[in-house]
């Protein structure tokens, strides 16, 4: 990554970027303008939020990608469940995970390339931070949580967000736990009368600083790699300290912010029925947490990479269907597999609808969000990482223009990560490694 402050893009780089791919790149001016406007407070303009929404096992070629007819998006059979929210969406088509001859590690290479800008050399080993954690760092400087992550599958391993090669963010797996974390003890409601900070919370901050006093001595006991691990531990401690700071200072809350009702207890696993239920309940909690400015970043997993989703009473899961189902002679595709794709799209439609139905500052929460949805593969049957299906939802506080089909022609998929980082105000001019290195952001997305 090149920080613009230190290494400005040359005119040639900009031009080269602008010429490559059908979706054109943009240079510096808007970037810098944007970097100044990503803040916002509850009292004035709502802040911008960004997050990811993941589903496993892609789509069926030819059935999902919309067409543009008379300037309007016409959805395919598999994207049809998104009909009622399509005006909020952009569809991104034709972006590839370029692996530079490295093996296509099934269900891993696509997501890892897209998220980190580096095609993984080894199975399951992320080689750098994923871009949305960099965005979370930028947007979440003052919020209680850097990011709010959950999976609707009940499995804490279903997460694709990495702070570094060795530190993966662990998602919440139940609505109850998510509620407790967001709105349980530690949630600082706007108080009536004079604000009195909790003396225990103040003492806790002091105790944590005593823990930190031993840092130097501990470092002396460790080798270089372990010192880095210790450093990460203290970074994590710092985030809890920030939560205590927020808890002990008077907070201004948006008028629309209120503590929602505690959810009940739900079974959480890959049973499709339970996934839909958990996802909906947790998405609503997330929406209110965003309104209350508890975080400006989120990561949602609807179904896992190599989706284990299954319908009750059936011996095969979505994953098994993708590999084992015969192509239907009449339909010309795998019929049951395709039903699972539609189920994933129903999930995304619900998510977008929840954000769109949450009022905020005269508009909707979705207006101030950018949700980036993607899968691990395009055609799961052959684990293809070309044309991985991706979408955005929302306007990112007026920065993004929705309702479009954005088509590229085998461009590096890292262009998306670059664009989103720039939209978040990060001064990044170039991102990715080797074949995924790009300085060409997607201007068509920008309002």
């Amino acid at each position, binding site marked *: 990554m090149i920080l613009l402050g230190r290494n400005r893009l040359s005119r040639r780089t900009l031009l080269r970027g602008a010429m490559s791919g059908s979706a054109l790149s943009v240079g510096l001016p808007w970037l810098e303008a944007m970097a100044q406007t990503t803040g916002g407070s509850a009292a004035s303009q709502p802040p911008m939020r960004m997050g990811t929404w993941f589903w496993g096992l892609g789509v069926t070629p030819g059935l999902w990608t919309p067409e543009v007819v008379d300037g309007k998006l016409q959805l395919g059979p598999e994207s049809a469940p998104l009909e009622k929210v399509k005006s909020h969406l952009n569809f991104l088509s034709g972006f590839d995970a370029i692996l530079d001859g490295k093996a296509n590690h*099934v269900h891993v290479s696509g997501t890892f390339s897209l998220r980190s800008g580096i095609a993984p050399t*080894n199975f399951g080993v992320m080689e750098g931070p994923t871009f949305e954690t960099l965005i979370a760092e930028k947007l979440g400087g003052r919020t209680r949580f850097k990011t709010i992550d959950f999976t609707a599958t009940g499995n804490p391993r279903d997460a694709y967000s990495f702070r570094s090669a060795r530190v993966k963010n662990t998602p919440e797996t139940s609505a109850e736990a998510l509620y407790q974390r967001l709105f349980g003890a530690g949630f600082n409601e706007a108080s009536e009368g004079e604000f009195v900070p909790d003396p225990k919370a103040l003492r806790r901050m002091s105790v944590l600083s005593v*823990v930190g006093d031993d840092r130097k001595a501990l470092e002396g006991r460790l080798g270089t790699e372990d010192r880095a*691990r210790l450093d990460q531990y203290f970074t994590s401690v710092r985030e809890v300290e920030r939560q205590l700071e927020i808890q002990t200072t008077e907070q201004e809350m948006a008028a629309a912010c209120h503590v929602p009702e505690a959810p009940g207890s739900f079974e959480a696993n890959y049973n499709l029925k339970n996934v839909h239920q958990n996802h909906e309940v947790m998405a609503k909690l997330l929406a209110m947490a965003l309104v209350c400015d508890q975080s400006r970043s989120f990561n949602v997993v609807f179904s896992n990479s190599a989706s284990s989703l299954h319908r009750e*009473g059936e011996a*095969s899961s979505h994953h098994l269907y993708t590999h084992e189902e015969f192509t239907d002679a009449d339909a010309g595709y795998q019929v049951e597999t395709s039903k699972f794709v539609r189920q994933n799209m129903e999930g995304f439609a619900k998510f977008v609808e929840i954000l769109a139905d949450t009022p905020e500052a005269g508009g909707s929460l979705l207006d101030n969000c950018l949700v980036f949805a993607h899968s691990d593969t395009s055609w799961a049957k052959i684990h293809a990482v070309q044309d991985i299906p991706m979408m955005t939802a929302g306007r990112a506080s007026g920065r993004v223009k929705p309702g479009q089909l954005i088509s590229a022609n085998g461009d590096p998929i890292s262009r998306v990560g670059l664009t989103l980082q720039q939209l978040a105000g990060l001064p990044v001019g170039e991102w990715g490694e080797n074949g995924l290195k790009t300085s060409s952001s997607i201007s068509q997305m920008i309002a």
Partner: protein
Amino acid sequence: MMRGKSFIGSLNLRVCASALLVSSSVALAGCGGGDKVAMETPPPQMRLISESQYRHSIADIFGDDTKVVGWFEEAPEVGGLAAIGASEMSVSSSGFERYYALASTVSEQVVSEERWGRTMPCDWALEGAYDADCATNGLAVVAERLLRRPMSDEQRTRWLAEIEASSLALGSFSKAVGLAVEGMLASPEFLFVIDDTEPDPKGDGVRLSAFAKAHRMSFFLWNTVPDDELLAAARDGSLHNKKILKAQAERMLASEHLTTGAEAFFEDFLDLNEFDLLEKDKVIYPAFNKRASVDAREQMLKFLTMQLIEKEAAYPEIFTAKDTVISRPLGMLYRVPVSSPDGWEPFEFAEDDPRAGLLSHAGFTALHSHPGRSSATLRGIAVRELLLCQTVEPAPAAVNFTVVQDTENPEFRTARERLTQHRTDDACKSCHEFIDPVGLALENFDGVGTFRDDENGAPIDTSGDLDGYLFETLPDMQKSLAQHPGVGACLVEKVQKYALGRAPQGGEIAWRNRLEKNFTKKGQQLPSLLKAVVLSDEFFAVGDPQMDVSAQEASVANEGGKS
């Protein structure tokens, strides 16, 4: 197929370093024809404690009625073991939030009226002023256990000042002590086991401190913190004396806590944490409820500790033993009557029952299956990777799966018929020929381990071959496995990695060879293998922290290249 683990290759240096200039070294035999060689020692380690280590530690330090309710960040499996992942991972912010919340609930219990007297040498009061004597004496005991070594004077002063300030601010001495305990429980010294070194009086290098030695032994053999006797040997430094160390090791091996330690190893060795995420379709397998799942995991652990720790059976007997234990929920899966309504009772598979050994246990076959059906492939991979330490390459990406499985197709009714079709694809063939035969031998068990003779009306054929051993039936296959030299070697390899928390480097390969030779010679008994590990100098070897691993590996490799 997707495998939710990361396989990170660690350096396996098969290098014999002959003359390294090192500050601390151990003499090792066996590398390069038995010459005595000097070997670079590994740097100190920092291992994240596992959930079970956390739970056992809290129970042993504060009493086993202390509730630990919470959620833990799990270490990824690296090289087949979470014990290695624990040496490589750190704590994410959401992970630390949870450890901090756990620390809070545990410390609140520790300073509650009913438990206060266990740790603090004074009377409890909800609203009491700072008591310097009580704080000093109580803190010394708690800190030595939580921080895994005695506090320095400077640390003590800081913590006491903190308790005093909190007492004043909160108007409660007990609450103030609670916050200090909370801080220590959230400290890196407690959440990680961090090696502590000191100058070695026998040279100019360093050695593990006696406290670090005590913790290394205790976490390895008991999966928890040292007991009072071991701590006393650390405190007076007598643990540095080889005779005393040996006596302590023997005491620990004879203790009932060895079962706890062995279970922790089996959990990691056989990936039993996967049971936490195991899901079966309720409509297809109504008998496999949560209790059955919990008991299936427990049964495997009880079977293994009974055979290998209590009876000290030779390791390969776990593939043929007929005696195990059973509970009522499992009776449903095994289709046998169980008289005890609660708990466990001894159970023996009948002579003419094809079931015997670990692989016939419902836990093994259920864990390595899909939610709605069995999987010869997943089971084959499990036997190959977990029990034989063999590597199965992930499926190639560009496989054309049009030759498919369809359980309703009248031509392909059994898993064997379907997989045979799958193997007609060249890209799949070599791998599946390696994986499937051993998995197909287990096809008599459905997706939750219930015995069946046929699948979709067609008889199940269990014959095949395992690395040259031909077999017809499941008992034959398990006998082949028992004779396979790979199983014993794999156990030694995993025990050594588990003890080290990393892949062996340099001369540690020679150490493994020595352990393996010894293991075979002494009747392949697990307790004697554990003893050999813990009494090896290599188990405690440590180098200067400021020289990092990669530099050390590079120096070993360079020297090896020159020789």
